[in-house]
């Protein structure tokens, strides 16, 4: 911690955990207005399996293209490792599990595991995402389809 009191540190940790909780819920309920509002304009996403998305507006269009239609998603995040390079910048690593279903057939398309590596900035008093990189440890594609 750089220049933060214990209370300031604890409050910032809680705010970043809340930010992350909202992001996972916004993604899985397809609340794209909420999703966009959690990210700084200059946010960059660089996730395994996808191109680099520069800017929050580019990201939101890309996320919608991948997930909005025909996909039901579950994103569960765990055990944040949040650190503060400065009182207004933070980074964290979260354990994650995701499931992506075909909304029509219910087929499980992807069951994935890995870690989100993220950065945050406190801008005008609000913590926002400034980058996200999903590093996969395991992707099981159609893990339930090889019956018989």
């Amino acid at each position, binding site marked *: 911690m750089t220049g933060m009191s214990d209370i300031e540190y604890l409050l910032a940790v809680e705010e970043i955990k809340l930010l992350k*909780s909202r992001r*996972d819920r916004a993604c899985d309920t397809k609340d794209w207005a909420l999703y966009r509002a959690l990210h700084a304009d200059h946010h960059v996403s660089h996730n395994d399996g996808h191109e680099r998305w520069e800017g929050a507006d580019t990201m939101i269009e890309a996320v919608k293209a991948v997930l909005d239609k025909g996909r039901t998603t*579950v994103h569960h995040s765990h055990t944040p490792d949040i650190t503060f390079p400065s009182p207004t910048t933070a980074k964290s690593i979260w354990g994650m599990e995701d499931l992506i279903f075909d909304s029509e057939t219910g087929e499980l398309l992807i069951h994935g595991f890995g870690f989100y590596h993220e950065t945050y900035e406190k801008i005008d008093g609000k913590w926002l995402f400034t980058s996200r990189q999903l590093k996969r440890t395991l992707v099981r594609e159609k893990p339930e389809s090889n019956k018989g």
Partner: protein
Amino acid sequence: MAIDAIVLLKARRDRAADTKDWDLYLSLHAPDHVSQNGDYGVWNTAAEMMVNVIKSMENLTTMHHSHTPEIEFDTPDHARGIWAMEGLSFWEQQGETHWFQAFGHYFESYERRNGRWLFTRRALKYFHTRRSPGAIFPPPIDNKSDR
């Protein structure tokens, strides 16, 4: 901090459900607690909830996992929380093991009364569920004929 007390309350509720520790479960809820559960309708008191929870889960082995809380305070003694959840239930149906898996969010309210945080409301909204082929979920309450 109050957030930690509410996170602890939630942890105890999930554990009490899965270990069927019904004394603990009841003690976490205000007497006027209201449940709106996707599977079973509305229960208007903690006592009504307990009768139904105990019956409905009698023949189930369950897993309730809750994640990434969004806890906000309306007053220092009134809070609301949203939790991502996964639920998994197993039971015997005509000699076969069946399962039901659900993903959704808990929408909850809490109050601090006499210094203790308690549940006052819980609504569970699923956004995706699936089940083993032929599974009847929820299994009919009071139906033990298959055991």
